């Protein structure tokens, strides 16, 4: 079969976007030989899976997160600890230092009392050395403790923000890698929410993590001392723990579904806001602000109600964890008093166990803060993982396109394509464009023109048949090779929030003269020159500062500056004034652009450029020939392209056309 794509060389190459992250955990993909398109797809899927498994660690080879929310939450934290072990260690040490020095503080007070304050009051005098010692001890402990605080908080912050950044890079790399079909299924607002709110949620528990881990030591020491004091009372005191665990289970159980819903609603809210602001013009001109606000408010209120319900559960959880150790102390006292009376325990031991139990209450609370964050974290992580695990990355081969100038040869062989097997969009499409020639694709709406354009530029791959550029199957070309030879100008121009130069070059290393030349051919030099900053003028998000026609011309210049060997114009001048369009077409013909040209067009001036016209209907090529030939031989074609004149002039279209 044809798709022998993976060699170690191109394997690394096609991972380039992932590799550019120096901190990546991902395994370099293993080279392998695939034997067909489906095998290629599967193999790639496994790669993604492997990558995710590598990233998400050992809790689930295939299934990702599993088990209780708490376990899953710790698994998510495990990912971050494995990813940032040093910062985690540093912040935990900071937390331990803080804990130790809190104890030291009490010790310093005791020492000062015994060695300085009491002697001073007894003797009525004190050496200045002792005063300095008191000051030094207190300050020393305080400063070290401050160091502990800074290490803990800053460390946790650095760890959290690094994890956020790692994840955001991974998620956006995935957005770039996933195919068009995936993008069409996922609303912009949702994807923004995945990269923002979900990532934030996933790594939220890192903030209380070092404190919780640091206090585990405190808890262990206290529990140990409890057992040393009185085993029975210690066991009574430790009854607190199962209750704490039960409380946590209940919390996670009730909280998780609400958190899941809340994150989903956040995404939906972001979706509504994004769409509504995108369509602001329609909303404004039809005076639909009120309805849009109601649409948004309904979702905002749903989120509000879920948050309130989740909040009530949280409101119960925190004080419960705070109260449990205190209640434990009372039980210890009650049991203790009878044991003391029975001679089984010493009063001092009861006091010690009670005191230690109050010491334990702080770690329990700080662990509680951590547990409280887990459900939202698990939800966020899941949502992010579902993006990272999405399949269908496009595989690339190792082939290169021939360098040099001159038009490319395009050959389309028996191509079929369908989203839905029952509704094929293209069937059995075959044609050839020799180098330097022009082919026009003409057809009614939904005849398959735009689908064919996406196949030519490999936004999607055909289900059947193949497309060859200079004899090489597009699927055999390495990533980035096709765009070196082929440039497409889409129907709707998309501009980046960048300068004119940036939008035209997209990072290609070309001189300003070449940029101006491309702008000139695209008839965009005039209005660009009139911009205050010329090529350095920023165009705003999606080029909002320009008109539709101006955006199309910048988009055209972007294609032209690359001197493509195959230029595909998908109705690319639809919003341009005819006069301007005529000049563009003249420029394309005369300006030394010897590229092979595929144009989707309706205007006869554009169709007239073509050496051959392909008439598409219902996903098939129903006729081909020159414009003049088709007018005669294909009545449907004649009807299609003349419909316009028919309507406006009322003259017999064919005869008018023959004259032309």
């Amino acid at each position, binding site marked *: 079969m044809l798709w022998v794509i993976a060699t170690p060389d191109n394997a690394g190459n096609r991972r380039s976007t992932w590799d550019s992250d120096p901190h990546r955990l991902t395994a370099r993909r293993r080279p392998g030989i695939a034997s067909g398109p489906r095998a290629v797809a599967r193999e790639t899927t496994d790669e993604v899976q492997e990558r995710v498994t590598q990233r998400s660690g050992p809790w689930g080879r295939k299934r990702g997160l599993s088990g209780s929310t708490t376990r899953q939450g710790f698994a998510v934290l495990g990912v971050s600890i494995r990813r940032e072990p040093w910062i985690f260690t540093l912040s935990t040490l900071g937390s331990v230092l803080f804990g130790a020095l809190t104890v030291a*503080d009490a010790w*310093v007070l005791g020492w000062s009392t015994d060695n*300085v*304050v009491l002697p*001073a*009051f007894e003797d009525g005098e004190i050496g200045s050395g002792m005063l300095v010692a008191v000051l030094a001890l*207190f*300050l020393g402990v305080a400063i070290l403790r401050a160091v502990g605080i800074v290490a803990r908080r800053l460390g946790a*912050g650095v760890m959290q923000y*690094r994890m*956020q*950044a790692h994840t955001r*890079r991974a998620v956006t790399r995935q957005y*770039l890698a996933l195919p068009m079909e995936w*993008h069409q299924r996922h*609303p*912009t607002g949702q994807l923004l929410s995945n*990269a*923002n709110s979900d990532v934030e949620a996933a790594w939220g528990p890192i903030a209380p993590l070092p404190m919780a881990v640091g206090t585990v030591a405190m808890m262990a020491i206290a529990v140990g001392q409890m057992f040393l004091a009185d085993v029975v009372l210690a066991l009574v005191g430790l009854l607190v723990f199962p209750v704490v665990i039960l409380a946590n289970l209940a919390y996670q159980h009730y909280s998780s579904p609400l958190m899941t819903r809340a994150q989903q609603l956040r995404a939906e*809210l972001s979706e509504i*806001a*994004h769409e509504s*602001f*995108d369509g*602001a*013009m329609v909303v404004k*001109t*039809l005076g639909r602000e009120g309805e849009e606000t109601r649409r948004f*408010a309904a979702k905002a209120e749903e989120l509000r109600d879920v948050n309130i319900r989740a*909040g*009530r559960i949280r409101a119960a959880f925190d*004080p419960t964890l*705070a109260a449990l150790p205190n209640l434990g102390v009372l039980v210890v006292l009650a049991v203790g008093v009878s044991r003391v*009376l029975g001679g089984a325990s010493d*009063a001092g031991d009861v*006091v010690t166990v009670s005191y230690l139990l109050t010491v334990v209450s702080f770690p329990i609370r700080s662990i509680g803060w951590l547990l409280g964050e887990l459900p939202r974290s698990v939800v966020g992580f899941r949502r992010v993982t579902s993006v990272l695990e999405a399949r269908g990355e496009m595989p690339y081969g190792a082939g290169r396109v021939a360098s040099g100038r001159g038009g490319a040869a395009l050959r389309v062989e028996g191509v079929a394509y369908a989203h839905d097997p029952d509704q094929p969009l293209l069937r059995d499409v075959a044609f050839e464009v020799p180098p330097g020639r022009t082919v026009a694709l003409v057809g009614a*709406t939904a005849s398959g023109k*735009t689908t064919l354009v996406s196949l030519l*530029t490999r936004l999607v791959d055909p289900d059947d048949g193949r497309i060859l550029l200079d004899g090489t199957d597009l699927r055999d070309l390495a990533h*980035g090779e096709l765009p070196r030879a082929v440039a497409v100008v889409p129907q709707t121009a998309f501009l980046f929030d960048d300068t004119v130069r940036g939008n035209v070059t997209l990072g290609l290393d070309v001189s300003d003269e070449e940029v101006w030349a491309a702008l000139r051919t695209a008839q965009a030099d*005039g*209005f660009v020159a009139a911009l205050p900053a010329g090529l350095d003028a920023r165009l705003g998000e999606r080029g909002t*500062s320009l*008109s*539709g026609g*101006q955006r199309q011309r910048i*988009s055209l210049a972007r294609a032209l500056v690359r001197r493509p060997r195959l230029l595909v114009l998908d*109705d690319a*001048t*639809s919003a341009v*004034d005819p*006069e301007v*369009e005529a000049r563009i077409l003249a420029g394309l013909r005369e300006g030394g652009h010897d590229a092979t040209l595929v144009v989707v067009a*309706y*205007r*006869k001036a554009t169709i007239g450029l073509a050496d051959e016209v392909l008439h598409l209907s219902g996903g098939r090529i129903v006729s081909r020939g020159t414009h003049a030939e088709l007018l005669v031989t294909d009545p449907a074609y004649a009807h299609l392209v003349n*419909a*316009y004149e*028919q309507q*406006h002039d009322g003259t017999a279209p064919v005869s008018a056309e023959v004259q032309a």
Partner: protein
Amino acid sequence: MSTTTSATPATSGTVLDSGEDFKAIDTIRRGVRFSPELKEGIGLTLVLAVLASLGQVVVPIAVQQTLDRGLNAPGGPDTSFTLAAALVAAAAIVLTSVASYLMTARLFTASERGLATLRTKAFRHVHDLPLLTQNTERRGALVSRVTSDVDQVSQFLVFGGLLFVVSVGQVLVATVVMVVYSWQLALVVWLCFAPLFLSLRYFQRKLSAAYATVRRQVGLMLSAVSEPVVGAAVVKSYAVESRTQARIDEAVAAHQSASTRAQGFTAFSFSLGGVSAGLANAGVLIVGIWLGFGDDISAGTVLAFAYIVTLFVGPVQMGTQILTDAQNAIAGWRRVIGILETPADLVDPGPEGRVLPRGPVDIRLAGVGFAYPGGPPVLRDIDLEIAAGRRVAVVGETGSGKSTIAKLLTRLMDPSEGAVLLDGIDVRDIAQASLRRSVVLVPQEGFLFDDTIAANVRYGLLDATDDQIRASADELGLGDWLAGLPAGLETMVGQRGESLSAGERQLVALLRAHLADPDLLVLDEATSAVDPALEMRIGRALERLMSGRTSVTIAHRLSTAESADEVVVVDHGRVVQRGPHAVLVGEAGSVYAGLHASWVAQSS
């Protein structure tokens, strides 16, 4: 109130208020004004908060009493006292826990209610902003203002705001206790904390700026992330993944470093509290000893004082922490409030506004000039009268200013000079509801929402039934097109309408306009090239849509100009020619003759 004062160019493109220049307390005050729910029942919540925080004091005391007077009672442990005391303590614990639960639950309820209101108000206000401001703001940044910025506030309102008030109360009570023991030592403690209190202002400023940067970076990051999402096709077909990724990485890194920097300030400022506490402890002992030499104080008092200091230090540290953590929330809050405080400078005269009578509208532009803020004039000295029911085509080269005329007629912008009058009324005096009812713009790119065709069409007439929509489609000659769609009216159009072709999107926009039944129809380049069969449909639909109304079309096509009653030719911001097509085309060497020549060249 009829605000007819002309909007100056300087304000018509107002950049959104970042709100960075007002203080934290101002932010909270304004925030509460926008979200009155935050104040509801605050008294009871505060009582509960005091009760809950009392618990933190009462419980250890109760335990202490049980120990001292029950277990360690002189003459052996006193079982009945211990049990009784333990029961009382347990009751106290349960009571304070319940108070704590109620307080937090009430806070969650009040703050989520308040924030939902704030979000919704801000969302609404974004739609009320001038088109220019909407366009200059990055979409992602706007979205973040009504989503994640608001989310930041919630944590603070629940876990911060009220506890801060309680902490301040505790500090004051502790101060009183300290003064009762020894005013001199109380003074020492306050002196030791003075640097902290003084530096707090400095840190608050730093933190405030740092978190404002963080929130801004979130907006920029979302904008960067939206590029590969919205522009996926371009990114892929030009293989500019790594460049796009580099731009995102830059935004992600900027957000990361801004957050880390802010966290650094937070950590450092919080740690100062601990140092002050150490200083205070040492100070109390040293000054206590010194006071003891003068017999002003006993050793017992000094030692007791050393313990009382902790009652002061605890809430001070709590308060400091809340203040520092609050800055992130305040920064988010400011950005949301910033939207609400950005003037929507196309002022709706409201109920006092005049109502346009129904029936075709006549138009007069009197000395109209327009310039974007800081830009050169786009339109100059336009005087134009269009009689009711006329069909006018405005033509001109790209950039001639013809699209601006459409925006002025529909009051998407107000002129910098002169006035636009509909039926003799300045558009600035017409109630928005009436204006939107009577005047409809069909924009160049008919934006569709990710919903069904029916839902999109209903933007024109909210309560339109399916039958009405079908009848309307039949009137425009679109019935068979609609019937031919896979799911008819229920066909989903996809994001931004991308499942439909450009021409079909236009049909939906026309249908929408037809249902809206305007008296003045403004079409902005709505006739860009589509497949000729569809084009014919559109032409027919337009023909029917325009009949019986005044219509102004920003035209690109010969046919549109030809079939108009009158053509207005705009060149370099001025009207240079007007009259019927037949007359204008005969004016040799004119702008219109030039345009016409290229049209003819096009369609032959």
